């Protein structure tokens, strides 16, 4: 061995256990990494996107213990024992979540890069406020930038999802 030390990223000295989309996982990683980085690089969940690494764009939004967070601003070490929901965790039994379905149907996703963060931010809103007003939707999504749609079809999608979720809850399809 000629190397005097391992490159920093190879020093996986941090270990945490998180519930990722409802499944307990252990992960070892270099301690400086953010939640975004471990999701993408150490846990193979690439659905969560980099857009700026500075908390400016919203592309990396995930749900942490029920709250929408920008995963590029959360140190992975802070997440031990916590619940993380990413875009990969929304569909169940092969069926799209109503928000995903609405985005797919109504033009809520064009290039798709902001979509995971947008959908999770919308989900966090609807989990808390099942029947938000149009202005509450605009407000909740204002930290998620989209360069393709001009946002209106995203609002359409969220509004359609609200109706769909209510309906599915009524019929017992969705808890």
């Amino acid at each position, binding site marked *: 061995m000629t*190397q*005097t*030390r*391992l*490159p*920093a990223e*190879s020093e996986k000295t941090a270990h945490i256990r998180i519930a990722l989309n409802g499944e307990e996982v252990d992960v070892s990683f*270099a301690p400086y990494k953010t939640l975004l980085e471990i999701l*993408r*690089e150490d846990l193979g*969940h*690439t*659905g*969560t*996107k*980099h*857009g*700026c*690494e*500075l908390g*400016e*764009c919203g*592309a990396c939004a995930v749900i942490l213990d029920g709250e929408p967070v920008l995963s590029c601003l959360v140190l992975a070490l802070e997440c031990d024992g916590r619940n993380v929901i*990413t*875009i*990969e965790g929304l*569909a169940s039994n092969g069926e*799209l979540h109503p928000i*995903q*379905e609405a*985005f*797919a*149907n*109504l*033009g*809520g*996703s*064009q*290039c*798709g*890069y*902001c*979509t*995971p963060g947008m*959908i999770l931010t919308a989900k966090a809103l609807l989990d808390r406020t099942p029947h938000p007003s149009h202005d509450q939707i*605009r407000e909740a999504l*204002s*930290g*998620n*930038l*989209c*360069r*393709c*749609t*001009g*946002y*209106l*079809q*995203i609002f*359409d999608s969220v509004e359609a999802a609200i109706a769909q979720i209510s309906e599915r809850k009524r019929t017992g399809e969705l808890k």
Partner: protein
Amino acid sequence: MANNQDLPKRASRSSKAAGEDLRVIGSSRQRVDVRGKVTGQTIYADDISLPRMAYCKILRSPHPHAVIRNIDVSRAQAHPGVYLVLTGKDLPIEYGILPVSQDETALCVDRVRHVGDPVAAVIAREELTAFEALDLIDVEYEILPTISDPEEALATPEPRLHDYGEEGNIHKRVSFEFGDVDKGFAEADEILEDLFFYQGSTHLAMEQHASVAIKDREGKLTLWTSTQVPHYLHRSLAKVLELPAGHIRVIATPNGGGFGGKSDPLNHEIIVCKAALLLGRPVKISLTREEVFYCHRGRHPVLMKFKVGVKKDGTIKALDLQTLIDGGGYGSFGVASTFYTGALQTTAYHVERFKFRACRTFTNKPPCGPKRGHGTPQPRFGQEVQMDKIAERLGIDPAELRLRTAVKPNELTANFLQLGTVGLEQCIRRVVDMSGWKDKFRKLPEGRGVGLACSCYLTGAGLSIYWNKMPHSGIQLKLDRSGGVTLQAGTTEIGQGSDDVLAAIVAEILGLQTVDIRVYSGDTDLGPVDLGSYSSRVTLMAGNAAVQAAERAKAMLAEAVAEKLQVPKERLRFADNAVFDTAAPEKRVTFPEAVCLGESRFGTIGTVGSYWPPKMPAAQYKGGGVGTSPTYTYSAAVAEVEVNPATGWIRVVKIWNTHDLGRALNPTIALGQVEGSIYMGLGEALMEEQEFRRLPKKLSHALVHKFPSILEYKSPTSLDMPEIFTEFVEGPDPRGPFGAKEVGQGPLLPIMPAVANAVYDAVGVRIDEVPITPEKILKALAEKRAGREPRYGPTHFPEISWPEALRVPPPWEGGDGRAINETPKERKPRVEKEAVLKP
């Protein structure tokens, strides 16, 4: 599969062509690639990870202009975990998107021309290691004076940024005169002279550029990258790496937004290829947001001088336009952009005589290039604001003035552009009705106003970027006995929906659903060449190629099925995943059965389609190719704004717009393109600017980027969006597939001038530049109160030594498209140009 959802209430369609039985085309439906996007399964370039993959980081110049005296990479090379360090001498061959501007190297060899220019690259086991090792590279720079804007470039011929171009730091200068404008001005009743400035802006695609290269198991090169132009990149790689193009595979991953920002071959793409070849292991780079600002290739800042002469009835007798363009440090698409700052000034309103002179200069800033609308939003802004001023001067309603001067279908313009269908009049009439224009214009209370503007855009550039006689688009279809249809295309899905449009065309013709078509796009190994996702060309060009390929497949199946069913093949209909006799629909076979019959009859079924733009014999003069297009789209928009005279704050309340798109192939996607264009236009109108500042003298006086971050580069959020009402004006154009024209760029163009005109209606001040900020409005209001011209905008246009104009008499003066003072065309340079790029 959700189909036929209604469009939201805010959108409507003027008409649907009657008597047609289309099952897929024209219906709102889920786009074919959307499931991956809403589930996170779509693999963008940055999501690719390969075994043994190494990471690349680039050392970038901290200086806007300097000579590289020496680079010492020894300390970086010795850093643990570093595999390779590359510098300019490893990649010395010049390239560039245009054959006439081969002025970039992947790493600067001896000179840096803007902050962020790449100087060296480190490839290491980990990304962080590569990043750390950048600090260990020692570069000696000799600082050179910097040029911050075009006026400074004109005044500073030395030192030259490049040793090519017109002279000094002038990259490109063009000069045309279509008819004697002086005579036109002499015949005019009113002459208006206006100066406008259009600030530069950047694409800000949400996806930061990323690339992964490998030397594959056959020893060949494969590159996955977020590019809009895999074909042009493929050519550049062959040139710079000196490899046979056939041994290089470029795979354009789905782009997380493009808007023109991924249309150049970019240095990091070449660097990772070189590194992968040298290391024999995969190499990846993911640019940071700051680096994306340095890649740029965004909207050129343009200073414009418009002189127009009009008759009392509004007839435009003459237009004399000069543009001065800030190109940044490299050529990029700049020569084309230069032509585009004038080429489409004749395609919306009938201009009898047109003089156009444009000058692009080099400056020590990241290179400008094509952004949505490529070179045309700037002069469109000037022309549309000036139309508003003309209307006021003549006492004609601005909508009426535009209706009087609107071009006619199939017109040949003063500069010999052949128009196709023109829905401009209908666009204007409809937007006037929808917006209640007649009850609002000059009638709303102080502080509230409406403004109208129109526009015209290409449906695909008529010429390829490099001269050749081959098709602009190709499509390949494979049908097999499973009934599956595979579509292979060189097009790139950048979010605009090109995969869906192509699948829809093939599905419609073969009687299938889009879900039945498997699309492989953006891969130079799998698909035939397509020139790329730029200039709004894909729907029309690749779409027409898809029509041809599908019709050919259909003809083969029809012959085999006709024989089997014993009916004339002309009576067969392909629909609902079956082929049946229209006279006796119970006589039918399923689609998979039809393919089996075809395969039994003809053998393996594969068809191809090609598309060449129509020959454009009209414009014979040199430079006449820029601006040509198979057909053009038209838009009209009305903006309603509120302006607070105390703070200057502007709120856009509503936008009404109409767009003549021929036919909406998927109305949900088309609406997304329109609303996305309007959104981006509002960003440019109100806030977006790629701005630079000088450091203080004692700190080197260098020119640095003001906002290389998303936080500081302001773009509209969900809270900034007004209500938008859209109507598609549909009149199928025979040149487009199922009549379709473009929809991705045109609707952006009228937004900035509509807002400017609305601000004038609201508070009576002219803001003759974008972005229109509260500060500028307050300054203009102060001018108004002081009794001076109620205006904010540029105040002078510098003297430029223009070359003698190419004089081309317009068609109505007997012109034949040739310049009367042009030396005969030399054939030789073209051949050389092509040879340069052919490995």
